């Protein structure tokens, strides 16, 4: 399936870790196969699968956050999870670290438009938000990245 490497790129971008990204990608494929009857012929398969993926990601992120807050604040919870996990061994590089610091909504906007090359309209449809919202998330995400990477350089 030609789409797979791209899906995987989006997954790893969203999750911020190769291993989590592959988990996410695997779940997306499985859900898409289970629901393949719901995909409408003639609509774009890639957008449909991206939409499934970001919905799974949001569900996962929500439950992670809830678990995290039971004991510690969200920030610390994420830090424990990522420090302890083996995938912390992977060198993310400046860009990866900068992406990690973006809020989820800005990160997905940046990924869809700047990495995946979707038009604003398509990206907004995948996320399910108005174009204006997408546009402002994109600008904020982009400015944040420029600031972080500019500092690092």
């Amino acid at each position, binding site marked *: *399936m030609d789409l*797979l*490497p*791209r899906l*995987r*790129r989006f997954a*790893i*971008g969203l999750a911020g870790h*190769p*291993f989590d*990204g*592959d*988990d996410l*990608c*695997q*779940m997306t*494929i*499985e*859900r898409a*196969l*289970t629901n393949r009857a719901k995909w409408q012929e003639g609509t774009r398969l890639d957008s449909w699968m991206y939409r499934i993926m970001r919905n799974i990601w949001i569900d996962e992120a929500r439950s992670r956050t809830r678990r995290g807050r039971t004991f510690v604040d969200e920030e610390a919870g994420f830090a424990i*999870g990522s420090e*302890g*996990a*083996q*995938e912390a*061994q*992977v060198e993310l*590089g400046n*860009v*990866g670290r900068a992406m990690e610091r973006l809020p989820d909504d800005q990160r997905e906007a*940046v990924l869809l*438009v*700047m*990495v995946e090359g979707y*038009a*604003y309209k398509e990206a907004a449809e995948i996320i399910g938000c108005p174009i204006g919202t997408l*546009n*402002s998330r*994109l*600008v904020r995400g*982009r*400015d944040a*990245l*420029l600031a972080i*990477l500019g500092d690092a350089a």
Partner: protein
Amino acid sequence: MTITPEELAAFADAEIIGERRAQIEAAIAADPALAQQLAAHNALKAQLSAHFAPILKAPLPDRLTVPLGGHDTVISFAGARGKLAVRKSNLRWGWVVGPALAASLAIAVFLPRGSGEAAGFAGPKLALALDEQLVATQPADASTRILVSFKRPDGSYCRAFNGSAESGIACRENRGWKLIDALPGSTGARNQFNQAGSENATLLAKVQQMADGPALDSKQEAAAARDGWR
């Protein structure tokens, strides 16, 4: 003419077309500050593409391609969730296994498969590794790596291992190392996107069920090896 940051960004993303695009082009040509902002946008885009490009070229891990190979092999969604939960719960082994997994990136050695070992027991090469290798001191390029050593409730020693030819858990019995759980090894070159394959997560989940107490630390492990794992 004022150009908002949103508009400039949209321009960089080729979202603006027609007359307005020409106007903005003219404005950029006349204003070095705008031109600089546009260059920054384009540079960022190039940086992002370059960062994610290797993923497109990397070989796909089996767990992503297998579900698409045929409907018989589709793992249920609930199953995948379970696996995810297992992996998350494995963090207490992370300190033991982390270094081993990191080093296993370097492994690309193929062992000859199962040559004449007694059924269910480790072959000579694997047995040697199980006898002698210690988690703390094993060479980084060992063809079989010991992930963790632990004791079962009956007092016998077991070790989880990962190799290019086979992975699994072996427990010491009188006749030798009995293979409790054997999985195909992590064949093929590992790349940065699929190190620490899911077989390790499966193994470690199993270890957690089998083990009586925590994993052996390096001292306990060295002592157990000295005593021949009995």
